[in-house]
C-alpha cells in the first residue's frame, strides 16, 4: 500500500475514548467566609473598612492592600449602581438562549468595591449606566452560602 491512498472511511481509524476525573473545592477564605455566612444567615452584605485610610473593600478583605493595616467588617446595604453591562445571547456551548441574560458590573453603595452579577426584572433596552439596583435574594431556607444566593439585581423603583 502506498500512503497516498488515504483511509476514507473514518470508522476504519482506531480511536480511544477517555474521561479525566477531576474534583475541586474552593474555600471562601477568612473574609469570604464572613461575607457568605452573613449573606446566608441574615441576608445582609458585608464590606471591610481599613482602620487607617478608610478604604472600604467589597468583597471584604482581611487587610488593607494599600497600607497593610487591619480592616474591620462593616455592614452595607447591598444596593448599587450599574457601571457597565453586557447582554449574553448564547450559552457556553454556543446555543442561542431563549431568554438573554444580562450581566452587569455593579458599584456597591457605601464601598469602593464592585461586583459582577446578573440583572433581572428589566429589559435590556431599558438599562442605563448609573441606574440604581438592589439585590434579590433566595428565600432564607434555600440559601447555601454561595454567590448564587443572590438571584439577580433589579432596578430600584
Amino acid at each position: 500500500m502506498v500512503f497516498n491512498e488515504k483511509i476514507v472511511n473514518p470508522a476504519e481509524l482506531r480511536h480511544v475514548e477517555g474521561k479525566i476525573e477531576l474534583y475541586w473545592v474552593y474555600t471562601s477564605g477568612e473574609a469570604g467566609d464572613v461575607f457568605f455566612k452573613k449573606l446566608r444567615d441574615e441576608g445582609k452584605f458585608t464590606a471591610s473598612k481599613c482602620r487607617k485610610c478608610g478604604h472600604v473593600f467589597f468583597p471584604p478583605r482581611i487587610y488593607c492592600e494599600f497600607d497593610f493595616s487591619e480592616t474591620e467588617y462593616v455592614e452595607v446595604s447591598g444596593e448599587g449602581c450599574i457601571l457597565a453591562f453586557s447582554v449574553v445571547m448564547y450559552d457556553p456551548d454556543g446555543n442561542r438562549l431563549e431568554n438573554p441574560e444580562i450581566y452587569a458590573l455593579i458599584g456597591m453603595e457605601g464601598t469602593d468595591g464592585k461586583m459582577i452579577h446578573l440583572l433581572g426584572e428589566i429589559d435590556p433596552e431599558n438599562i442605563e449606566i448609573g441606574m440604581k439596583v438592589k439585590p434579590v435574594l433566595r428565600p432564607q431556607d434555600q440559601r447555601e452560602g454561595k454567590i448564587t444566593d443572590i438571584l439577580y439585581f433589579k432596578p430600584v423603583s
Partner: protein
Amino acid sequence: MGRSDAGWNGNSSLKQEVIVMAVGKKNISAPPYVEGHELELEDFENKTITYVEDYPDIRYQFTAGQAISRFLRGLKEGKILATKCSKCRRVMVPPRTFCELCFKPADEWVEVKDTGTVETFSISYIDPDAKPLDEPEIVAVISIDGASPKMGILHKLGEVEPDRVYIGMKVKAVWKPESEREGMITDIKYWKPLEVE
C-alpha cells in the same frame, strides 16, 4: 472547629504586635500575619465553612491516525506490522506514514517478529496514585526483531524476577487469547524472556 482566633474579627481587640516591613524605601508598619486555618474534613461535611465545589466533565477522544490504526488492527490478528522506506530501507515500528529522515511517504507494509531485545528498563514499585504495588512492574523499551536497530516500543515484562532483567535480554511477546483481543497495545499482555534458564 480547631481554629485560632487571629484577631481579625472586627469586634476583637487589635493585636499589639506590629511587624515593621521594608517595602521599597519606606518602612511600612504591617499587622501581624494571619495564621492559617487548618481545615478538617468535618468543616466540609458540617458546612462550618463556605466553599464551592465542582466535578468538571472532561472527556476526550484520541484518534490513532492512519498508520497506528492499521498497526492496532494488526495486533488484533496477532501480528506486529511495520512500514518500510524504500529509500533508506528503514523498517519502522511503530509504523509511521512518513520517513522522517528522507521526508518521503513510507511505501510498504511489512510484518515483523514478535520477539525483541530489551534496550532499557525500569522497575516500578508504585501505581499511578503512588500507592505501593504488591508485585513490582517492569517496564522496558523493546527493540523489535526484523525492524531497524533501535526501533521499538515501550511495554511490560513478565515471567521474570526484577533482578534477572538485563539490557540486551531477548524477549518474546505473550499475546492475549484471540477472542479477548480488541485492537489495543494491551493485546500483548507482556514480554517474557526467550531463553530458558
